[in-house]
């Protein structure tokens, strides 16, 4: 009898632990934080012209290379010249990196935590910016214009030339 109840107790305990782990995993998965782009390793280091040309030449293979099925797309460090600075509806700073002779560029939206640094940026500076790619450059025949590569959650890595 004693033996039986010991087994019973142990089983109950194990079951309890199992259920607790399952619940905790569930809660963790549900509340899993977003990927921290700034602290995650960079996948590719490129110049503005390199990423833009790669997309204009072969959008299918570029999407295959850079975009992720679950939206956890590649993290890029882009070197380029700031041609314009603006603020979006979310009150975030957006810079456009674009070469003078290029059809399209790379827009980078800075993350909230990089805002103070981003505020110091000026037009024509050459900078290195890290962020997650959301979509590539392409010519849109309905808009009748080129669309830029989109990078979000950006942070400033370096100012190469002021």
């Amino acid at each position, binding site marked *: 009898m004693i033996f039986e109840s010991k087994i019973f107790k142990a089983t109950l305990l194990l079951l309890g632990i199992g259920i607790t782990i399952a619940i905790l995993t569930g809660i963790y998965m*549900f509340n899993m934080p977003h990927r921290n782009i700034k602290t995650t390793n960079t996948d590719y280091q490129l110049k503005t012209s390199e990423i833009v040309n790669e997309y204009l030449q072969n959008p299918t293979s570029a999407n295959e290379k850079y975009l992720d099925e679950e939206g956890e797309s590649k993290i890029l460090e882009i070197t380029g010249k700031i041609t314009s600075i603006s603020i*979006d509806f979310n009150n975030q700073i957006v810079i456009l990196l674009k070469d003078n002779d290029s059809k399209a560029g790379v827009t980078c939206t800075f993350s909230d935590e990089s805002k103070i640094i981003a505020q110091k940026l000026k037009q024509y500076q050459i900078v290195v910016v890290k962020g997650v790619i959301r979509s590539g450059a392409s010519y849109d025949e309905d808009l009748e214009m080129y669309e830029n590569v989109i990078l979000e959650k950006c942070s400033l890595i370096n100012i190469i030339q002021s």
Partner: protein
Amino acid sequence: MKNKILSFVLLLAVSFSVFAQNENKLITKKSHFKFYSHTSIEDIEANNYKSVGTINTQSGEIVFSVPMQSFEFEKAKMQQHYNSPKFLDTKKFPKAKLKGKITNFGDMNFKKDGEYNVQIEGELSIHGQSKQINENAIISVKGNSIKLNSTLNLTLADFGIAFKDGKPSTNIAKVIKTTVVAEY
């Protein structure tokens, strides 16, 4: 010499036509697309600030290109589900497109301040599937600033997005309220 003059005239004509085309086209300076799903279990919201759009002030044609991976959710897991092949499949279909025309364009005057109620008829492509739409929007003109506001109710099944069972079928609304704000 003749050739040179000819090519110069040609160049002038080409650059003029490019210029003329751009002059009639307003391009968004900023935009905001918001998805809102309401069920008795939970409310889900996602925001996108990266869409690009144009309005042709001569023809009334209106276009939006929406980068689908730019929709940001509060919960990371939801965002992964939304992007995945089971739902929006954003790797395969990275952009959604709205292409329409203002049908009561005669009432619209981009040079006169005011709020204009417009009807937009056209096509919306999401997830590789297109649907005819007929929506209302308000275009506000104030000096050089032009703003567009609209709310679209999008039925997921129209775009081949259906959840038969499990959590998504109970937690995600069948009709997603989509609000659009754009500044040109």
